[in-house]
């Protein structure tokens, strides 16, 4: 009897300990989330450059491996949407690295084209993670779509690491395809990223996104949402006010997900060209 009693006490003690530890971890992650959020660009900065915009940001956990970033330099706005390997804490750590590196690059180098920024970002990530291309090492890194928008000339530079972007003009979705390689070491030797120049028009809508939305399982058959329906959805809503777009995207997502769990962090950024 004594033994059972002791065992129960011990179990309770352990349960309490685990609860305490869990709470501590959650508290600390919640605090980390605050830090992560504060590193993301403030809404008023985005509003200043693009008065009509939305950001749909749904971390899977408290902290996210997805991040968005924006810096304004003179008449140019530099912005990106990225997805770091993993989610939760490891992804968040990588995202902080990404944000810091991007800030460093635009501070240290004037007028680098978008592809050169990605080249340099890759060098920094590889150096930070001590990647040498050895086949045994982890392939940590990030996917990203990086844009530079010249507000005066209305020209957009885009360079992408595995992330495409969409531009909706009138009734057409124009897709700009990324280079098929990540920021970080991969199976093939690094190649320079390519720069794409796009002449934008007033009221073009630009979408940057991570793959969380299209990869979400759901619907009646529990399948992935996929790119085609996503593109069709965007085309349908592109003319609506940005707030409504965000609402519809969120509602559509929730509806699709249904009872399934969220598989990844979700990030969609929509921008109406002023």
């Amino acid at each position, binding site marked *: 009897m004594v033994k059972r009693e002791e065992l129960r006490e011990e179990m309770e003690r352990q349960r309490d300990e685990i609860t305490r530890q869990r709470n501590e971890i959650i508290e600390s992650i919640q605090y980390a989330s605050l830090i992560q959020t504060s590193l993301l660009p403030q809404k008023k900065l985005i509003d200043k450059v693009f008065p009509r915009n939305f950001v749909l940001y749904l971390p899977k956990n408290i902290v996210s491996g997805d991040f968005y970033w924006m810096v304004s330099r003179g008449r140019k706005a530099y912005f990106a949407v990225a997805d770091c390997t993993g989610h939760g804490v490891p992804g968040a750590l990588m995202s902080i690295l990404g944000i810091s590196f991007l800030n460093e690059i635009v501070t240290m180098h004037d007028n680098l084209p978008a592809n*050169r920024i990605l*080249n340099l970002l890759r060098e920094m990530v590889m150096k930070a993670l001590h990647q*040498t291309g050895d086949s045994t090492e982890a392939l940590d890194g990030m996917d990203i779509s990086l844009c530079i928008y010249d507000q005066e000339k209305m020209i957009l530079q885009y360079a992408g690491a595995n992330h495409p972007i969409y531009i909706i003009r009138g009734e057409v979705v124009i897709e700009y395809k990324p280079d098929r390689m990540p920021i970080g070491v991969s199976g093939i030797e*690094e*190649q320079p990223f390519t720069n794409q120049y796009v002449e934008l028009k007033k009221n073009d809508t630009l979408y940057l996104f991570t793959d969380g939305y299209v990869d979400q399982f759901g619907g009646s058959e529990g399948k992935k949402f996929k790119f085609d329906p996503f593109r069709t959805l965007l085309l349908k809503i592109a003319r609506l006010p940005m707030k409504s777009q965000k609402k519809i995207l969120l509602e559509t997502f929730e509806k699709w997900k249904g009872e399934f769990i969220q598989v990844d962090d979700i990030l969609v950024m929509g921008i109406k060209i002023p």
Partner: protein
Amino acid sequence: MKLLAFRIRNFRSIIDTGWHSLSSDDITGLIGQNESGKTSILEALSSFYDGKISEDTLRSDLSMPVVSCLFSVDDDNEITDILKEKLLPAGVIEQIRTDKSVSLEREWNEDLSSRILLGGEKVVALFNKHDEGVIAKNDRIEEAINRILQKKKDVIASFQQAENERLGIETRLNDAKATVNEISRSLKVKGKKDAEEKKKLQNQLAAAKNKVNEIKNLLNEKSQEVQKLNKAVQTVAGEARYAEMSKEAWREFEEIQREQNEVFGRLTNLQRLYDHALSEKERRAIQLEMDGVNDRYMKLLKEYEQTRERAIKRRLLAYKILEGLPPAAAEKETEREKPHINPFYTRLEAGSLIVEHIPEFVMFEDFSSLLPNRIDLDDILNGNAAIEGYKAARNFLEVAGLNEAFFRESNSRILKQKIEKLNRDLTLDFQDFWQQRIGRHNKITINFELEHYDNTHPDKSGFPYLEFWVKDRQERLYPKQRSRGVRWFLSFYLELKAAISRKDFKGKVLLIDEPGLSLHARAQEDVLKVFEHIKDKVQVIYTTHSPHLIDIKKLYRLLAVQRNIHDDENSETVVFDAKSLTSASADTLSPIYTLMGSRLSEQQFIQKKNNIILEDLTNYYYFSAFHALLGYPPEAFFLPATDVSNVQTLVNLLMGWGLDFIVVTDESPEGLKTYQDLKKNVYGNNDNKIREKVILMDGFQGVEDLFSTLDFKKHVLHQRIGIPESNSDFVRDNKLSRTLLASDFLKSIQEMKITDFDEETRENIENVFQAIVERLQA
């Protein structure tokens, strides 16, 4: 103010040197063969300063010499402080401030007199514009004066005509009156007799009287017209009075001017006759006449000034009155404005004032400037420059701070003590200044003593003289007992020292023909060191044949002078500056060749053209590889300096050899320094000129940075690590061998094509090579 550049025209063998800058570090050497015109350049500069030239300076076509010198203006107010009494035409001061320099021109006249003018193309244009304005104003005044005089003439003519007409009418009236009288008389006589006759006469009388009345009316009208015109004449005469006075004053002035020219002509004729007079008697007679003419000329000069002043003043007065100002007010205003004193400087006035502030130009001549053994004190104190060694001895006294009063000390013991102390001080000062040695341990000192002639010199007995000694550790000898080299050094020291010790020292340009001709090679090199030592205070321009007086690292200091032979009769001195030494003949450049030992261009390594100087061997490997990959330019010879700091030496060598070259440097601190040094020393701080020859790889700290990071990793490092820093920083921080990486790369390109490199690398390399091609083609 410092002398920056010169231009010499029509001086001995020189037709026009064009502008040539002095070396930026104030030591400028002129090299060239004998008779090339080196010395003429020094003489021309000396003449610029003192205005003296001789007949044999003139060219055979008798075009008169003009020497122009450009001086630095260091302070914005420097020129306005000098030219503060009057005004300068609009824009002149601003131009001088923008240029930070001022140009002076000395022009000679046929009588070998000269004048200094403020020069410079833009400044002269501003003066001309101003003068045109003044002329236009004078023309306007003259026109107004002529107009009023014409008006007066016209009014008088009208008046005279009216008066004549009036007189005519008066005559007619008198005639009519006479007719009336005659008829009246007849009526009295004949009317009594014949009634019919009476009636007839009465009718005639009435008609005659009518006529008289008619003419009276006419006369009346005419008289009124005459009166009116008379008034008009009075008015216009008043107005024209001042105009006439002005005309009269100008006539007088022009008359004096004409007479002055005539007398001047007579004076020059007499001078010519005097110069060629065959006998003393003839000369005396001419002299006598010349004195008389000269007096007249001097008087005319004075009159010239007076009449000119009056004429200018009267013209302005007339103008003011014609403009409607009452005469009294106009006179007051004219007096206040002092129109006879031109408120603006002329180029001549400005030039003459500025020249007072330029550095002193001194020609240091070996032979007349050597220290004598002894010299009479009287000769020094009386300025007897013809005496041998006068200049050196005078310099000596100046350095020692001695004047007449010093030698008036009656107590000979005190005087001896003073001299002894001075000898000690001077020696110390000399050693301090003169750190070079002649002979390893053989420092020399200079002493002087005051002695008096004894009765072995009966004509000078008792007169004081100075005796000089030159001492070293071993012996005490008279200057003339020492070698010419030592004497030269001493005299040179005294010349410099004297100049610097002057209270009014305002800088000096020392012109030295063949310095230390008699010096040993090592001592000649010492001369160069002395130039270095004094260059902050004394600018030196020297001629030389000696390679020992050329610093191979500083060929930018040289101007090459040579004689271009057009035909048997005609030849002309031309000057090449450091940048264009390549155009000078091999003979002209022979001292440089001697210095270099052998002609590099005769070897395979360096060619006559298309040489590209690079910072070091690393650059050499990479550029050779890039050249092979690109396949252009067809001919390029890369020359590596041993280090970026030696690029300038290589530049000097190639300039010296007269070989064409361009330079490529990067933007590292050392590369930038080299670029700046070349710009300052070789290209006269001219951005355009250096850009023609030197390519600065903009934005690249090292040649490795021409590669994109990816290509550098792939083709040079053969690693996949992340390199966020620049390639050159990576190589340095990881202590990799630059040269080894570069040479391996060169070896590895056999199988490669330029398209194997990414766009960033290709663009960088192509940009640099495009710049090379452009410069080689230029």
